Each structure stands twice: as structure tokens, then as C-alpha cells.
């Protein structure tokens, strides 16, 4: 319990100090807000084009697709808030040798590296994503109005959203940890981020081959489509359990990889 309190207190200090540092550059908030709104408008425009001829997208209605897009926007905001600012520093720590300081702190190094900083500039994305989800669920003028989900569906969707956050985090962390061996592997996170853009649309909208890849290779389906299904009350229990299992496996995998990678860390020369 004492240890948990220490970790919690450390997290509060990490985040308050990094928010203070970020607020040294307040103009970033407006730039990020414009960027999120621009991206969102572009995605909605593409969706509108796809739905223009009245055809459902891979069996998904307009509102359902908006929920998937909303979840993607939330995940992208989370990436900007937590993943990008923290995990992009790992490469820097390795190159400059400041990882030494992290490894010598009496705190879990994966916890430190994953949470040391937070960027408030992803918040507009998270808020916009949730607003889009609510709007899609409650919009009265749509042909299908889903209304408020049942509390069970809401709970399941929340659990699956957490699972998708864990999967996303683990993918980023694994790539960052690989930079202990291959410094340039960090560029792969850009590839990852652009591949995960596929999560803007329901997985069933893609051709069968891509669907397989987005389910079993890059788990895009688990990131947005499956939580959206839960929110719409049409979730299959097998896929929900699979999503939770994938999250558990990814997190454990990232942990094991980090513990293994540390053995190969030789620290930068002075």
C-alpha cells in the first residue's frame, strides 16, 4: 500500500512538473486544437463521401462509423498526451546516456519511462473524440438513433477501451524498447502511427486480406471496432474476451522485452 502511494505521488509529481514545462509554450494548445479539428473534419468528409450513395460501410451505419472514428480520435489524443512524449524520449535517453539516471532510481524503470511526462496538447483530441461518440449515439435526426447504451454495454465498452489503450501502449513501448539494439527502429513508430490510421474506419470495411492483417498482425480491430461494437450493444463475447486477452499478452510481452533489453544496455560512453 505504501509502495502504491509512492507510485501515485510520483505520478502526480511527474505530471504536474511536465504540464508546467509544457505551459511554457501555450501557443501549442491552439495549434493542436486546429490540427485535431482539421483531421476530424477531413475524416468526417471521407465518411460522408463513402456514405453518399446510401451504402452502409462494411455493414456499419453512418452513426456507428462515427463512433469508430470517435474512438480512433480518443486513441490518437492519448498517443499525443502520453505515448509520443514519453516513448520518444527513450531513444534520446539511450543515445545521450541519461537512461543511466532512470535505471538508478528506486522505481520501476518501465513505469518511469512510460509516465514521466504528459502533454496536455492531446486533450483536445480526447475531448473531441468523446463528443463525437456522444453525438453519434444521441443524434436524433439520424435514421438509426442508438440512444444511451445500457450500463452493461457501457461497462464493457469502457473495459474494452482500456484494453485498446493497453494494446496501443504496448505496441509503442515494444518499438521504443527495441531501440536499445537498433537506434533507428524508433522511426518505425511513425509507420505504426500511420498504419493505425486504418482504425478510423470499421475493420469490416476493408478487403478480407487487410481485415486479417488488422486483426491478427496489427491489432487495429481491437483498438476501435470491437469497443465500438460493445458501445452499440452488438458485441460478441468471444471477441470481447479476445480483446482483453490480447491486451494482457501485449502488456506482458512489453514487460518481458524491456527486462530482457536492459541486459544489453551498455550505456553511452562518457
Amino acid at each position: 500500500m505504501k509502495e502504491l502511494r509512492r507510485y501515485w505521488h510520483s505520478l502526480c509529481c511527474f505530471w504536474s512538473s511536465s504540464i508546467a514545462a509544457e505551459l511554457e509554450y501555450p501557443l501549442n494548445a491552439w495549434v493542436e486544437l486546429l490540427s485535431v479539428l482539421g483531421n476530424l473534419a477531413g475524416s468526417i468528409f471521407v465518411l460522408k463521401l463513402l456514405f453518399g450513395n446510401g451504402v452502409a460501410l462494411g455493414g456499419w451505419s453512418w452513426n456507428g462509423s462515427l463512433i469508430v472514428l470517435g474512438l480512433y480520435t480518443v486513441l490518437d489524443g492519448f498517443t499525443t498526451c502520453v505515448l509520443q512524449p514519453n516513448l520518444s524520449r527513450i531513444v534520446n535517453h539511450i543515445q545521450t546516456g541519461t537512461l543511466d539516471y532512470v535505471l538508478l532510481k528506486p522505481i520501476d524503470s518501465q513505469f518511469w519511462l512510460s509516465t514521466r511526462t504528459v502533454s496536455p496538447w492531446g486533450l483536445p483530441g480526447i475531448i473531441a473524440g468523446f463528443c463525437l461518440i456522444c453525438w453519434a449515439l444521441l443524434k436524433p435526426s439520424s435514421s438509426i438513433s442508438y440512444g444511451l447504451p445500457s450500463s452493461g454495454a457501457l461497462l464493457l465498452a469502457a473495459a474494452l477501451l482500456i484494453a485498446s489503450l493497453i494494446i496501443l501502449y504496448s505496441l509503442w513501448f515494444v518499438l521504443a524498447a527495441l531501440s536499445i539494439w537498433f537506434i533507428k527502429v524508433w522511426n518505425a513508430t511513425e509507420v505504426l502511427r500511420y498504419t493505425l490510421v486504418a482504425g478510423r474506419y470499421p475493420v469490416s470495411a476493408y478487403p478480407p486480406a487487410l481485415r486479417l492483417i488488422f486483426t491478427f498482425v496489427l491489432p487495429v480491430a481491437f483498438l476501435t471496432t470491437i469497443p465500438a461494437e460493445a458501445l452499440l450493444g452488438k458485441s460478441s463475447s468471444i471477441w470481447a474476451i479476445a480483446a482483453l486477452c490480447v491486451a494482457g499478452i501485449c502488456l506482458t510481452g512489453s514487460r518481458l522485452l524491456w527486462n530482457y533489453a536492459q541486459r544489453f544496455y551498455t550505456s553511452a560512453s562518457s
Partner: protein
Amino acid sequence: MSIINAKELSKIYRVSEKQPGIAGTFRHLLQRKHREITAVNQISFSIEPGEIVGFLGPNGAGKTTTLKMLTGLIHPSSGELLVAGHKPWQRKARFLRQITLVMGNRQQLLWDLPALDSLKVNAAVYGIPEKEAQRRINELAEMLELGEELLRPLRKLSLGQRMKTELLAALLHQPAVLFLDEPTLGLDVNAQVRVREFLADYNKRTGATMLLTSHYMGDITTLCPRVLLIHQGELFHDGSLSELTQKLAPCSQVRMELSEIHNVEDFCGYGDIHSLEGHQVQLLIPRAELSERVAALLNRFEVVDLEVSAPPIEELIGGLFRSREKL
């Protein structure tokens, strides 16, 4: 009981070798060649609680590798090592709370924030209650002569002030063992002196053990009664600086100003002539016979001025490294 105990400690790195040029690059891609480099070769030493020990050696001698093994950052290839009763490479929280590492060329504090914010983060990570942390910050800030500097963003501090705040951050958890890797690197003479004074004072007050590497001999001569001299991964000397000087320079330098000009032959039997220019002569005389020969010189010549000194330690160590590299 020793706080640091290293026995036949070695570290061997496996590195890949690549020939220069594009052909070498392709060959390297297709057929990698590796070779083993012994960075540290079976060194043994122990350090008692409260000691300040200087760790000397040229670049690439194995100092930093040894420090990294002592702090637990890298695994030794072989040998036994205990620091504060722990095997460092296991990096257990109880061990990490007892040590600290200060690197003159790297910083742990956040660049955009006042040092005080980073210190609060450190206090939280080490589980130091807020009031106690503030008390320790005040005490260390007073010793380091830091005041409102702690409230200014780090990027706006001078190099000397930044090093002092780094020291404060490194000592907040009251470690028993301090590993200091070039703590005065790049500092001006005044700042170097202040850092040295602080370290000496801290050692006196807390009884903390310190292992210090530095290329500035001033750091070593001021702070370290004992030095470990490492060269090409091997321990060359473990003892006091004066013992090292005796080991490296069995002769003393005697400089005389004479009232008359003399020939080389006149100094036969007194020692080796280092230089002879006009009234000035410099002789190298074995320490064991120093007083006897100086007395004879004073009897034989009319001496206006006399100075006996040991050759500068920097020159001696530099000479040692150069001579061993030639071997």
C-alpha cells in the same frame, strides 16, 4: 567491513568490426566479424566507509566501465562485487537508495523547469515526505550556496550553478556511497574549488563514501588521500598520491642558482643533469640520497637559491601512460 569490495572484476565487450569504405560496409553486412575487448581486467580493491578515493586513468582506461559496474548499470563479465552489501547489477531498490551517480557531462534535471520542481519529483520517487525533503533541500542549498537559483529554469543557470543543483538532486536521498564521474568537468577554476570544498564538507558531515574520477588533478590532490590508478583495464596503483609519486619518480628535482658559471663535469657524482643554462642548473637526485647530496652541493658550490621538488604528478602520470602505450 568494506562498503565496496571488488575481487578480480572484469568486463569484456563484444564489438563488431567494420572496414572503412563502401566495400567494408557490404562485407560487414554479409559477414559480421566480432572481437572481444577487455575494458576491465581482473581488478581487485576494497573501499572502507567514509573514504574518498580518486579513480585515475586516461580516456578509455576502464574508469567509466568500472563505475558502471559498481553502480549496477552493467553486468561484470566475471569476478565478485559487493557495494553496500548488495550485488549492484540486481539493482534492488534498497541498493539504489544507498548510492548516487553524478556525471559531469550529463544532467538529470529538467531543462525548462526550475530545479525545485525536479527536486520534488526526486523526493517523491525516493518516498521522502514533503517536510523532510524541504528540510534537506534547505540544508544542502545552504552548503552549496544556492538560493533563488533553485527557482529559475535550469536553462537560465550557469554551468557551475547547474552542477551544484545536480549535486543537490543527487544527494537528496542521503546516499551512503557517491560515484562522481568528472563532477567538475568544464567548470571555471572558482566553481571547481567550490565543488571540491562542498564534497569535502559533505564527506566530513555525513561520512559518505566517495569514488571520484576526474581529469583535473586538483580534484584528486585536494580531495583524495587514496587513489586507484587504472590503465588499459588493469589496476596499476592502489595507495596514496605520495606513494604513487615515489613509485613513478624515484628522483627529486633540485634546482640551483649559482653565483658562478660551472661546467657539466663539475656536477659529476651529484646526480643526473636535467638542464644547465648559465647560472641555473637542475639535477635529478635519488630520494634516498637527497639530503646527503644536497649538503655536499651546498659545500661545493656557492648557492644563491635552492629549490627541491617532486616532478608534477600530471607529468608523471602522463609519462607513465605514454611509456606503457609504447610497450
